[in-house]
């Protein structure tokens, strides 16, 4: 299919089977192709191939005005669509020198964390589906549906809401928004023990996950891993703490880490993050100003001053950055999206080689890539 296969059989070696896993494979979460060398069920070599979903956002964005680009950023990580808008918006706001009102900041935080929960729910369901359990998938998608309904009421769309904008959010929230969110949090907290019992506490799951795909701390940092993958290796790096944005400095939350760096740790960290998100949203619901502008003063034609700015946020998958270079015109000179899954997927050769084939599936789902953002 795509180019020559990068693994060639070793002459005279008869115990290695070369297997193309993907791009159409149920557990590659989209369109990843990994060329594997298999000795029985043990992986001897692994070469990942990406780009099947490539549509060159960055070139298209150079021919769009800034306000139009927000729509494109949504499409990167379509599972947590709203979160992708933020680093680009923050970078442009820096270049524009726009102030964001407090109310808008809190609304952004609430949406941001709601989409983190939604994204982690999708990960939890599909991850367990990869491990052979079908039921959590349907439970988590049902709960995610409630988040998407809340988002739909305010933003008018579910997965790709295009709701944040320069200086705040695009429109004020639905009158019932805060009530809905509070109700959802109560419901969701009542579901968490079920998930814990079905996933983290399940002995079969623990047998599959503990000690599998161990990623040492130094390697995780050097490889540029981020998000739960990095934190599961014992590095407490969270962009929300390291370079806070919006209302995060005023909110209290923990950054869950675990030293083991195995699949179980990555599942555990994401699981704890959902609980922390609930905590963050509850605080934000208390602190959000009930009245006030939802959008700062933004010039009608957005022309940032010449310069460049790199801003990052902590989306569900990790460190999402946007590097915006402006030449002072209505069109950007260059926009680079640094996506967390792209960097995390570099770990495939590190983690796959030496693992069993079934472990590879567990490892891949613990990396939780979304190919919209890998391939952009």
């Amino acid at each position, binding site marked *: 299919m*795509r*180019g020559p296969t990068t693994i060639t059989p070793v002459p005279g070696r008869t115990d290695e089977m070369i297997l193309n896993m993907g791009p159409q494979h149920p557990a590659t979460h989209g369109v990843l192709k990994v060329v594997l060398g298999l000795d029985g069920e043990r992986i001897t070599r692994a070469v990942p191939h990406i780009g099947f979903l490539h549509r*060159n956002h960055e070139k298209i964005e150079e021919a769009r005005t800034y306000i139009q680009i927000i729509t494109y950023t949504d499409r990167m990580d379509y599972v947590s669509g709203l979160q992708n808008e933020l680093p680009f918006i923050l970078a442009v706001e820096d270049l524009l020198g726009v102030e964001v009102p407090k109310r808008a900041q809190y609304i952004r935080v609430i949406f941001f964390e709601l989409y983190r929960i939604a994204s982690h729910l999708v990960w939890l369901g599909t991850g367990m589906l990869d491990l052979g359990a079908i039921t959590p998938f349907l439970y988590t998608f049902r709960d995610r549906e409630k988040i998407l309904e809340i988002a739909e009421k305010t933003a008018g769309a579910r997965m790709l809401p295009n709701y944040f904008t320069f200086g705040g959010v695009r429109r004020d929230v639905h009158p019932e928004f805060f009530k809905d969110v509070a109700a959802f949090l109560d419901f969701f907290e009542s579901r968490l023990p079920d998930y814990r019992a079905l996933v983290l506490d399940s002995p079969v799951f623990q047998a599959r996950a503990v000690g599998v795909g161990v990623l040492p701390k130094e390697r995780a940092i050097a490889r540029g891993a981020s998000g739960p993958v990095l934190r599961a290796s014992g590095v407490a790096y969270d962009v929300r703490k*390291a*370079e806070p944005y919006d209302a995060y400095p005023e909110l209290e939350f923990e950054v869950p880490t675990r030293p083991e760096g195995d699949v179980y740790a990555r599942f555990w960290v994401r699981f704890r993050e959902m609980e922390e998100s609930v905590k963050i949203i509850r605080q934000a619901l208390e602190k959000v100003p009930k009245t006030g502008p939802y959008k700062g003063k933004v010039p009608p034609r957005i022309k940032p001053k*010449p310069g460049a700015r790199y801003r990052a946020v902590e989306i569900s998958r990790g460190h999402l*950055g946007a590097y915006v270079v402006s030449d*002072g015109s209505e069109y950007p000179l260059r926009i*680079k999206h640094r996506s967390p899954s792209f960097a995390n997927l570099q770990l495939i050769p590190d983690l796959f080689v030496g693992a069993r084939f079934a472990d590879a599936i567990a490892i891949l789902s613990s990396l939780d890539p979304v190919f919209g953002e890998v391939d952009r």
Partner: protein
Amino acid sequence: MTELRFKKTTEFDEEVYAVHPEDYRALLEALKAEGFDYPRSLTGMDTGYGLRVVVHLYGMESGKKATVYTDVPYDDPVVPSATDLWPGLEWFEREAYDLVGIRFAGHPDLRRILLEEDWTIHPLQKRYDTGGYLLPDWQPAPWPETPPWEEPEAREEGGEA
């Protein structure tokens, strides 16, 4: 290397180094030694007069941020690779090669990553339109008289970063 040719500025909350391409590698080694251990990103871009590599670094311990960039001409876009310092830049350099056309000397596996192997162009260069076709009236801008790593009087060239 005696004296590194670079210019250091502070923009927002990070240090920005504009560096001469010959000293790019040495500066990165110095920054790595200084504690910038986390590779945030690497961007390749087309400035209109040449190709530019921008590396974004982060120090896990210090919490400091640094941006390093260098410009190379269109006809010889070779930059030393930094993958041995930060293995996490491997795919980013491949992407910059694939989309922008910067070649990284010493990269272990410099293949196209997002596009197919049989592509001949690097679509993010300004000489191509969004469809990948050559723009008929595009001309490269002249190489700036004061490159970014030298002290300028006032630079108005886009993308000073």
